[in-house]
């Protein structure tokens, strides 16, 4: 129970009102949603000068989740930790003989497989960068390789020879040759729930689902995207896949027999790459992570798609065609590769073990500790001192907030109108000056104040007027005031050189404003007949 202070709950009739400036209008756009705030919280860093288009980006599944980028005949490894420090140089680089097309980390993050356009697949030790295995069987450029999610022994690859191969990495041998695609195989993914299932997408518009347990090495399911498939991914549930091709990203239900659930058509050019991202969501106080599809396209946009609500929740523009995207498993880094050799890496601040914490919450293994509540039957309840902090369940009796009065507020309360005006003019806050002037107008004291100002204070006022009289927001008040001030204090102005200088400034700014108005009127003269004509239709 709370300790309730026996404060006098008496009310007063009069309230203290501060002199507040006029409110500014809010932008017409909707306020940022929590989700777009989340996506904007990735602090962007550019990794420039990578020569050519970034074909592939891949995150290591093991913390701290370094990522590899494939560009030209080079694979570079970057540490995400260095991004926060602003250091963007690669931690290590592997050189190839031909252009690298695809990258994949093994599930433990120790090995990295890379394919190149010569048709060779190499497996490297990430630490030493030495090639451990060389898998050669593809006759044409290999376009994608993929390690299965849990299986450490096999590797999936596909290439321009329209063949999908399953490799035994240790023996450098092909386990299965999966034939069926009629055009270049460009992409593929392994099921997150089963080590036997995987999908591949091809330029023949189809996406095929393969099962290694099927003998005749034919696809178990086939969906037609309608456009050359650029990328395909399994969504984390394992039952849905998302395919990218043309301007659209489509979501398919595999369990339901390959039914299309939704087509997201908000890109304007070809979607080149998609991946699964996660966003933090708050609902009724508890926080949890929700999956999103991140898609990038040649139009330079990254879109975040909520496939639960079938809605694009965030959109971000980059100044180049985008080629590849990847999102780190700890949800703190997202990298985007462009076609002109720049990687846009974004890193979010946060605790190092967001991911593990998130996991635990989902699984619900964490024991919830009972908050200890002091009750009157406990002895300790009666021994609480003045410094006792309120416990979680206590009802807080808030003390009324003390109103902070600015100097001009205090002076206005004492009816020292001129002093209030001078004090606020000295403070250089334009909004407040206007607010005080308006308050003086309602008290019918503004002109009296002007006539009482001495020369220095008048200079202050004239300086303010020369700066702000032509601002459209204030001009209705200030232009009238300026006229009156010059009328009333003409003699003083003539006698002082400093004041004359202010008047000159004022004149200049008004002349400039007149010029602007003049040109605006010209433009209006041009536009208004056009508007009238269009209005007639």
């Amino acid at each position, binding site marked *: 129970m709370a300790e309730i202070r026996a404060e006098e709950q008496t009310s007063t009739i009069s309230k203290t009102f501060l002199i507040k400036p006029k*409110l500014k209008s809010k932008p017409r756009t909707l306020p940022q949603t929590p989700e777009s705030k989340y996506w904007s919280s990735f602090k962007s860093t550019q990794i420039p000068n990578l020569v050519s288009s970034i074909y592939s980006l891949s995150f290591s599944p093991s913390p701290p989740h370094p990522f590899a980028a494939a560009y030209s005949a080079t694979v570079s490894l970057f540490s995400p930790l260095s991004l926060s420090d602003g250091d963007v140089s690669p931690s290590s680089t592997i050189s190839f003989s031909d252009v690298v097309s695809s990258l994949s980390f093994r599930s433990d993050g120790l090995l990295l497989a890379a394919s190149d356009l010569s048709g060779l697949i190499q497996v490297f030790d990430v630490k030493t960068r030495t090639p451990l295995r060389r898998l050669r069987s593809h006759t044409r450029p290999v376009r994608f390789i993929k390690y299965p999610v849990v299986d450490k022994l096999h590797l999936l690859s596909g290439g321009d020879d329209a063949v999908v191969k399953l490799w035994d990495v240790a023996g450098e041998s092909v386990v299965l040759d999966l034939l069926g695609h009629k055009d270049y195989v460009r992409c593929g993914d392994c099921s997150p729930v089963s080590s036997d299932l995987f999908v591949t997408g091809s330029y023949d518009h189809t996406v095929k689902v393969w099962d290694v347990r099927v003998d005749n090495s034919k696809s178990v399911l086939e969906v037609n995207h309608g456009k050359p498939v650029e990328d395909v991914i399994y969504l984390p549930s394992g039952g849905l896949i998302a395919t990218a091709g043309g301007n659209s990203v489509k979501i398919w239900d595999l369990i339901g027999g390959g039914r299309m659930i939704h087509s997201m058509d908000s890109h304007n050019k070809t979607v080149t790459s998609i991946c699964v991202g996660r966003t933090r969501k708050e609902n009724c106080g508890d926080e949890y992570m929700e999956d999103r599809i991140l898609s990038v396209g040649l139009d330079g946009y990254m879109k975040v798609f909520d496939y639960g609500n079938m809605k694009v929740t965030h959109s971000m523009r980059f100044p180049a065609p985008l080629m590849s995207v990847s999102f780190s498993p700890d949800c703190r880094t997202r990298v985007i590769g462009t076609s002109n050799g720049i990687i846009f890496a974004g890193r979010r601040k946060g605790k190092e073990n967001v991911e593990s914490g998130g996991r635990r919450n989902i699984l619900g293994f964490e024991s919830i500790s009972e908050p200890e509540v002091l009750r009157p039957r406990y002895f300790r309840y009666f021994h609480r001192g003045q410094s006792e902090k309120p416990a979680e369940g206590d009802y807080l009796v808030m003390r009324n907030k003390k109103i902070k009065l600015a100097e001009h507020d205090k002076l206005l309360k004492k009816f020292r109108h001129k002093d209030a005006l001078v004090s606020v003019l000295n403070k250089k806050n334009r909004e407040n000056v206007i607010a005080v002037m308006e308050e003086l107008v309602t008290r019918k004291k503004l002109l009296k104040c002007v006539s009482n100002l001495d020369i220095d204070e008048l200079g202050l006022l004239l300086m303010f007027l020369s700066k702000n009289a032509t601002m459209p927001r204030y001009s*209705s008040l200030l232009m009238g*005031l300026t006229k009156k001030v010059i009328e009333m204090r003409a003699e003083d102005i003539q006698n002082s050189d400093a004041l004359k200088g202010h008047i000159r400034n004022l004149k200049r700014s008004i002349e400039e404003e007149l010029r602007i108005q003049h040109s605006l009127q010209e433009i209006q003269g041009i536009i208004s007949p056009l508007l009238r004509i269009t209005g007639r239709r």
Partner: protein
Amino acid sequence: MMIRGGRSLVSSPPVFSNDANKLLVCTSNTVSVFSTATGLQISSLEGHTALVTSVLVVPPSSPAAKVLCYCWTASLDGTIRYWDFSVPELMKTIDIRVPIFSMVIPSFLDVPAEDKGKHRNLFAYVSTIDTKETQDKSKASRRQIRKCNLSKSCLVGRLILGETKKPEVLTVSPSGKFFGICNKCKLHIWKVPDQGSEHAAVRKITLHHTKKITVITFHPTQRIIASGDVTGRILTWRGFGNRAFSGDNGVDNQKLINVQEDKPGVRDIDDADLCSTWHWHSAEVNVLSFSLDGAYLYSGGKEGVLVVWQIDTGKKKFLPRIGSPLLYFIDSPDPTLSSISCADNQIHLLKMPSMGILKTISGIKAPCCYPEMYEGLGNGIAFDQTAGLVALRTENYCIQFYSLFDDRGISEVQVCERNHQPGDDVTVIVTAVALSVDGSLMSTSEVKLAEEGIGGLVCLKFWQAGSQNKEFSLSTIVYEPHRDASISAVTFHPSGNMVVSSSFGGDFKVWRCNNDSLQSDQMRQTFSWTCHAVGSYKKKPMTAAAFSADGSVLAVAAETLITLWNPYKNVLLAVLGETLTPIVNLSFIGKSDNLVAASCGSNPQLSVWSMSKLSLSWSYKLRIEAVASAVDLSSFAALVLLPESSNETTFKGRDGVILLYNATDPVPTAVWSVRKAKGGALGFLQVNPSFVEEISIDGKTPEVLLAYMNGDHEYVVFDPFCKDAKEVNMSQKVSHSALEVKGLGGQYGYVSIYGELPEFDKKRPETPCVPSFPSERPWETIFSGSSHSLPPLTKLCSSFLESLLEKRTVTVE
């Protein structure tokens, strides 16, 4: 069946009960008993037939008798009544047949407990009008102070203590030995005779001052009297009446001779020892009261500041910024509680030494007066039909929400963030207030007056109600919504998500509500209003606006014309015209396809327009003060100001009538005559289920209720369609309302008024259907017919051109 309310709580000083748990307040014909703990009304003493002017609680004769709740009341109806206000029950009525302006009963204040069996006479002193001597004496001295024997229920014959020009308030000393009045620049003080005999000589002294004295008060223990004057000075006379009143006291006489030579501050031969002056108040002093122990003096006046003077030192303490002129300060038997009554119809209960406000008994606030140019802008009254509330603008830049059924103030919304100081120049005016149909949204407009052409500002504000208790919070401010032109009307769309504001600057704007609820706290919805459309018609000032019941048509009055618009697409649908003078009030009549317009000026008019025919149905030449139409009925009510000439004879001082019309029928279905119609308002209310028992007659629940509020904000709520009950109820009221200041006077059945109508309604027999549109193409038909039957071409030419011209005035850009 009728609910009355909105009465003034501050017409006369209230009084606390002996245990300080109740406060008795004179509310016109009744005395209302309020609980000081909750500030709510407990009961009311009903019986007087005119304004109650005094209420006096019988003090306890012993501590045990504190629970007794007896009081005397005096009224302008010439009766003094004795009540047990705990029950409440009338115990005794004394009819003295002269209106009583003020009454004091000094003797029960000092007399010990009445002995058993032996009945003592109880005397009251009353301030009355002498009705008998009107003929021979000049009007000036008709007000008399007389003595009344309450035990024998009669005035003490022929004993006139004094005469004044105006009815003055009697003040009695707490000891009960003296009472006095202030009469212009003089104070008259009488000593109450000790013996209870009828004709004991009452001795009187007079003290003089140079200014008009407004209020006096007596010290509880010493012979000190304090008085306040119109210039704000407080004069304290010490030892008054030492010579005149101490004839029977030898010791005092001796003392008196010694001090007689030196009497600083005392004028001429006045019978006082010492007169001192305090001056703090800038305007007249209305409140003076000594504290119970006599150490402090409370004073207050027009500036709305309660000043506490320490009598010995003259040091001051203040309770500032009450915001309204103070009228009365009343101490309670409980030393920690007292009350101040303010001119804005509020009674504040103060926690005493700290002077914090514990509770406020909130009456309906009085109408505020504004500079002339803003007079005609409607009366700033909006009715909340569903909740039975009325929203009124008040002097302190607030909107007060007043419950018509409960007769109490619900809440106040501060529209402009300013403190009001009585006597200040009015520089900020709340010009309009509108409520949405469900009462959850409000829109207000305000004008800041310019100082010599600098810095005027018009603001339109949109408010949304909180979850409970009509606590409105600001959702959008629009500065200068129509540039610098002021707003003539603000109206809500029936659905509540659209508002139209019309301005004298020649345009109207349709505002739309964007409802964006933040995800973080889903409980709170925030509304933001943006301009949806702007419309104007030939640059004419837009003077009134109304939405139809289904919200599909918006009618905006462009001075004398009525323009009809589609509010969603902002398309002009039709123009109706025209009236003789600018229209000030527009209203669609519920379900029917009719529109009622009221125009004011030299040629006032009430006109009903048919939407289906786009023409005038019927009209009257009447001065309309307010028009109300119910949402789901086809009738409307109009409050009509009667012309001066017909006032005296037919309507006995009533200056207005409420006419209830069916939209299609120019003969009113019911007529009620009312008082103080100027500045009045009308509104239909939906029947609140919780009040069904009170309102319904023989189990029949009325469909709607009509609320009429007069110029003083007194109101009455009644069922406009109930005929028989009205006859019974009103016949009583008519007989009572001979002299009362009540809002509603009499109400007559349909048959009785039917003959009366021609007397005040200069009914213009207009053709029932005047099409305002000429036929589509008149020039085509002019020449039709055989050539020999046509008039000469020279004549035809002019009419042909005329028809073309006519066409142009009708077609609209």
